[in-house]
């Protein structure tokens, strides 16, 4: 995959993809949302999570599968998400780019 073919991640895509990778096999709407809120303090609606994940699935960055319906969810199934190799690669590449751009920058370290 050349530089021009790389999948560019948006900020929300990046955050959600990191949450999916952290949660592993327990990544579904409620846990992804909670993980983001606990770690970043950012509150993301379930609607934004699902639309973003569906878009990322279209790009081949995540895959999903429906689980079994449960009573506590009103008989509705969970949709579990998993990062694909392309998704993990996109995160690594973005981390490299951000790191390279921030290297030596005092403001990026939070010291003004």
């Amino acid at each position, binding site marked *: 995959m050349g530089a021009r073919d790389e999948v560019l991640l948006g900020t929300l895509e990046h955050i959600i993809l990191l949450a999916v990778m952290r949660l592993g096999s327990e990544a*579904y*709407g*409620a846990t992804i*949302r909670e993980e983001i809120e606990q770690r970043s303090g950012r509150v993301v*609606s*379930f*609607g*934004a999570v*699902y*639309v*973003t994940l*569906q*878009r990322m699935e279209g790009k081949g960055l995540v895959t999903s599968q*429906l689980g079994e*319906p*449960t009573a*506590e*969810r*009103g008989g*509705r*199934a*969970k*949709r579990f998400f998993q990062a694909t190799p392309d998704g993990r690669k996109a995160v690594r590449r973005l981390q490299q780019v951000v790191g390279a751009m921030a290297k030596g920058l005092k403001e990026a370290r939070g010291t003004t």
Partner: protein
Amino acid sequence: MDVDGCWAARVLSAFLREGDGAALLGDLAEEYARRVSEGSRGEAARWYRRELSSSLADVLWLRSVECIRTVPWGVVAAAYIGIGVYEFAVVAFLSRTWPEVAQWTSALRLVIEFPGMVVIAYGAARFRRRAAFVLGVAMLCVAALLNIVTSEPISTAYVIASLVVGPLAAVVGGLLRRAPTTMAATVLAFVMMSGPASAQQPSFAVDVSKTTYGEKSARAPRELDAFAFLIGTWTGTGRTRRPDGTYAEYPVGWVGRYILDGTAIADEGHGVFPDGKPALGISFRQYDTARATWVIEYLNLDASFLRRQVRDGVGSVNVNGKNVTVVSEGPGIAIREHYLVTDQDHWVYRLDQSNDEGKTWNEGAIEFTFRRSQP
């Protein structure tokens, strides 16, 4: 807390892929149950409503942004330009073969252009399926905007045709791409049915032998009745105030008739100037229902000028019972013409004149008193 079957669940299901709407509502229910077990039910219910609202807003917003981003704008723009070129070509062709229809504000022209627009929209849909539908929306928006901002007089038929023909052609073109056989059969049936129907439409050819003067048309606007008292032949006495305050008196005549197939009024005045020279003039009066305004023009034969008295935004016609006042302005002059109708056989014309933009008026500068001479 369950929203199954409510409008929120239906919206989420419509804008998310199959299963995601239910999964999202399941996540909400799971989180709601957790919050109920940890705190109060009322607080959890408030959280649920707030979260459902923000999820709906985010889904609608993000889907709208995705939709706009994925529109094939290039194909839409090319198709729109193609339709513009096609319209110019049709107008150029019609101006030689059917001049009455070769007007930009002709509804019939738009109908004639319909099949070509369908072909262009179909071509756009062949490149990108959604292009035809976006083209239809764009045509609808542009037509609505042009109808609002135009200063040209346009008929109701044109307004309707401009809003319907283009967008409909785009939709038909798009559907032709999806279901070519069904749509082709539908369009063919429409053309076959509309053929005999259009043959029954009134011809645009003019038969002047059937033009009747002096009779009001049933198609004439009701407002024209304000000047119906002018119809007929009138004789009487006129008087004009001289600068020294004395009056010059002279015989006057007036002839009023319906013209243009009974949809407008022309009335001519015959008088004498204070210096004894004849004074001849004719007024044309029409009420434009499309623009809801009077159009009155006055041709002065002796002084050789045509004065625009009333038009959209210029001058006014004020009807008070049987009496009418026409207010008009010219370079350095303002005029009030009072038509005071006594009964069906008598009326008075009185003219007030101002030479200082209406600050002072020479009231009754000219006055004609008429009685009916012939019906």
